[in-house]
């Protein structure tokens, strides 16, 4: 079990060393321009920006993220069910199918409610 984790940690370090190394290299080797204020302003495609850079952005992303979490947990519960279903399909196939069917149906009801209530509308 450890001999699977050590190569992953090693690769994690290799990627970080590669990334930081390349960024440091390009920072040093990069062309040095004298600081001028206009270039430092956030890119507004020519139009001078009026308010602060991070004005308030509408909050409708919240619902997508919440429904993602809840359906992600459903997906995560499906994975162990896969193993059990493919192994015990002969003796307990009906029971497993029924239990997961109920679980998925309850969540499908949640999805239908969400679609019908227009929570996912991107007006």
């Amino acid at each position, binding site marked *: 079990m450890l*001999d*699977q984790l*050590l*190569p*992953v940690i*090693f*690769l994690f370090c*290799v*990627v*970080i060393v*590669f*990334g*930081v190394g390349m*960024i440091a*290299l*390009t*920072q040093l*080797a*990069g*062309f*040095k*321009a004298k600081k001028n204020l206009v*270039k*430092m*302003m*956030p*890119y*507004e*495609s020519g139009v001078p*920006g009026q308010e602060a*850079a*991070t*004005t308030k*952005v509408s909050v409708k*992303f919240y619902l*997508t*993220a919440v429904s*993602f979490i809840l*359906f*992600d947990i459903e*997906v995560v519960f*499906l*994975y162990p069910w*896969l*193993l059990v*279903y*493919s192994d015990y*399909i002969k003796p307990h*196939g*009906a029971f497993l*199918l029924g239990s*997961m*069917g109920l679980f*998925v149906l309850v969540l*499908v009801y949640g*999805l239908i409610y969400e*679609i019908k209530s227009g929570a*996912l*509308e*991107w007006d």
Partner: protein
Amino acid sequence: MGKDIFEVGINLAKVAVIFLMMIQAVPLLVWLERRGSAFIQNRLGPNRVGPLGLLQLLADAVKFIFKEQFIPGNAAKFLFLAAPVVALIPAALAFTAIPLSIPIQVEAFEMLGKSWGPYTFQFQGVKMDSGIIYILAVSSLGAYGLLLAGWASANKYSLMGALRASAQMISYELGLGLSIVGILMIYGTFDLNAMIDMQKGPLQFSFLGSEYVIPFLPNWGIFYQPLGALLFFICNFAESNRLPFDLPESEGELVAGFHTEYGGFKMLMFFMGEYGHMMVGAGLVTTFYLGGYLIPGLTEDTVRTLIATEVGAGTVANLLTALVFHVSFIVKLALLLWIFIWVRWTLPRFRYDTLMNLGWKTLLPWTLANAAITAIVLYFARGI
């Protein structure tokens, strides 16, 4: 990781080489994309630098290193520099778990006065027991690269682009997770190597107690789960922000989305992350549905005996058979990557609400239905 220094060294070197192979694939894919798009749009594409424009890759790499590294005004400097590296990590970690070819047996040999025992090396980064679950877990960290880049460059457009890109990425991650439920149910394991072993031989399955064998079709996953394969492939487009799902980076509306303020090598690292996700997606489709490194007609032993006649049985023969199977994996990967590029230059871009509707209102129900039908059919196939 191994009994002695040689095996540990080879295992670690293998992981690093596969990561560098993925990094090296990026300029190649960029070149393929530019030539491919030129071919589709009936123009020539880069051909000045070197034969067929192949040295264009080198020229691009050198140019990216010496470009001015610009950091916008009130950007969060540390996060701004950290974002490209964070965008690179998930794709690299995920690609190591994909099996590239058959394991290689190395006989005992003499070196530096010591006799090193026989080894078997896996022809992949690391053989994970919970293969596909590890890959899904690591690739779910992909949203952080975008969010950091959008937030750190303190620019309205890039913040909006980052939020949209990560909202799109997490919605299609659901589709990704659910679309493989069908095929995992049939294989009944998470280990990718075991899945490939199950895809050997002609197509044979049992239904309602009686066996059927179709000799001319290979036993690949795509014949069991055609819809699942299509859904998984579509979700991979969205995961790697490829067209027609790359609206957050669309030039028209959001200037360049979350990497507006980036340039030079940092921009290239975002591309590496994107192409890395593409390669992981293509590798997974090959492993699940196209039989990984298997060649339909040949089995491992026939190829080994064929090679052994010229080279003589031993480490070299094992290495060559592994290479043969690796070439078959690369051919399938290249085919799928070409489809990625081909789709990019033919299909128009989605509008954002149709994109999200597709993700939530069509893909999610379809993948759930696919999983449900597979479960019921499997119950009749194996349960009775």
